């Protein structure tokens, strides 16, 4: 590996070490609570699927899925500890996904 690559790596490693020592010490309790939350939300999704709410069924399912995705991203994928640019990237992806969803529903809802 060249000197240049090494300097880049060293910088990245230092950043990682700093992140590990300062931000990533999360207790098992938090993870278990989040997991229980995800299981509870899945149960709600399944329950709602059995109730006739018309077009609201899909909207409710999508909202619950959005909350679950946020929980996974924020806690398990460590978005909570990432710097702002990563959060902005994730936000951009979510906005684009929302645009896909709205445009697809401009068809399904008016057919």
């Amino acid at each position, binding site marked *: *590996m*060249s*000197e*240049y*690559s090494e*300097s*880049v790596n060293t910088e990245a490693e230092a950043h990682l070490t700093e992140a590990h020592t300062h931000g990533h010490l999360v207790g098992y309790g938090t993870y278990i609570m989040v997991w229980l939350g995800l299981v509870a939300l899945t149960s709600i999704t399944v329950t709602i699927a059995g109730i006739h709410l018309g077009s609201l069924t899909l909207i409710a399912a999508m909202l619950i899925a959005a909350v679950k995705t946020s929980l996974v991203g924020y806690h398990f994928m460590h978005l909570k500890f990432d710097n702002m640019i990563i959060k902005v990237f994730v936000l951009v*992806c979510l906005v*684009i996904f929302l*645009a*896909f969803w709205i*445009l*697809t529903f*401009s*068809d*399904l*809802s*008016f*057919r």
Partner: protein
Amino acid sequence: MANGSLANEVSYLEYQGKHKGIAGWLLTVDHKRIGLMYLMAIMVFFFVAMTLGVLMRLEMLSPGQTIMKPQTYNSVFTLHGVIMVFLFIIPAIPAVFGNFILPIQLGAKDVAFPRLNLFTWYLYMTGATLAIVSLFTGGGAADTGWTFYVPYSIRSAQNVTMTTLAAFILGFSTIVTGLNFIVTIHRLRAPGMTWFRMPLFAWGLYATSWIQVLATPVIGITLVLIMLERFLGIGVFDPALGGDPILYQHLFWIYSHPAVYIMILPAMGIVSEILPTFARKDIFGYKQIAISSLGIALIGYLVWGHHMFVSGMSDTSRIIFSLLTFLVAIPTGVKIFNWVATLYKGSIKFSAPLYYVLAFIFIFSIGGLTGLVLGALATDIHVTDTYFVVAHFHYVMFGGMGLMFFATMHYWFPKMFGKMYNEKVAVIACTVIVIGFNMLYFPFFILGYMGMPRRYYDYLPQFQGWHVLSTVGSWILVGGIVFMFGNLLYALLKGPKASMNPWGGTTLEWKVPSPPPLENFDEIPIVTGGPYVHDKSTYIMHPSREKIHTNGGAKSAKEEAAL
């Protein structure tokens, strides 16, 4: 990677590292060698798909059966589409020239994740192998067209599953390459290379990479759903089970329309490289071209519904998608006008790459403007699913990406291989290609307008004249392409040595030897100005000789100014 000084004494082609011979290629993590491995694989698939295209044209020479049966014809046009789209058009420029040139243009020694880069090549080869195996296994080659529309793709007895699996794996290769380029552009730009000092090819690749990362997973999931429909009958798309076949079209085009911009944006980036080099002046409207790449990528995400105007989509949706489709013409127009303005009052040197670019601007403009005919609701109904669509697609894809691939081959050939080709032969080949191209595809516009449906094996006798003209055009086009590659192959074997900067280019790849050394630069250069400045150098290639240190530490006022 090897010791920098030793590695930089010889070119990347001659360098012998830990692995020798063929292993030195198959196990390489050098971005340039990986780019060449992609080039070799992609060229093989291009010639296979081109041969299939010529066979299709031959079949259409006369009504009824000419050289093949209807089922074979269905498989041939599917394969032509799948191979051209997934194995050539989408990966060609990013995987070959993005890999080879991007790190050098940014002033880096490699991409951000070199091993991951090699992994993408293996993914690509795995996907390609599966696509080929699918021809001879299961029920035979898929016959759905490259779009795999349901419900036919669910019920077809042909080997659709393996073909979709191949496309799924190829998608992964695309995603990882895109991710690698995004990180490379964010993290490995040379000191002083601000976003608006970055070459426009890098801007094109940056916009493309975002589409690759964000849109490709959608097609991945959709193709998996097709496999699940075929095996388990889950009923998401199958109307017989309460599914929605139009939902498949939405999901397919959410990826496949942005994929059109994956194909064209890097090509547009190269137009912006070649024009200032051969016009000997700075590009006109640098920032506008850079931002328009992002604009095309963004709006390109939101126009997929124009592929579905007659599929039974709601009227509200059709109006929205038609409006959005018209909007995408704005950033595209910005690029075209800026390119033409770059030539204005330039000291133009006509050379093969520039001829290809001029042909691109002319042909792509026809392709783009006929796209508006298809984007307007009323006219689309008349020409939908006719040869008009096929003509439009080939004018933007082959006339756009394909011609720019040839232009790029000529533009960076001396840099990649250190050899020069015969300029006169290259220009003649370009002329033959442009004539053959228009003779092959322009009749499609007329046939489509007259009502000739796409993908039909047979046709009415009154269409034959245009079909014959088109088939003859295909022979001329193929002749030109073979002539062009023959010239490049001859140059590779027996061509004279190329200098470091044969065209007078101003970006960083023209500041390193031809072919470049393994680690590209002895030292990471410092960038002091824009990429297309002709009257002074905007790079400090050996900062240490001028006592400028870029790896942290205090800097003098001069050093700060230089950065």
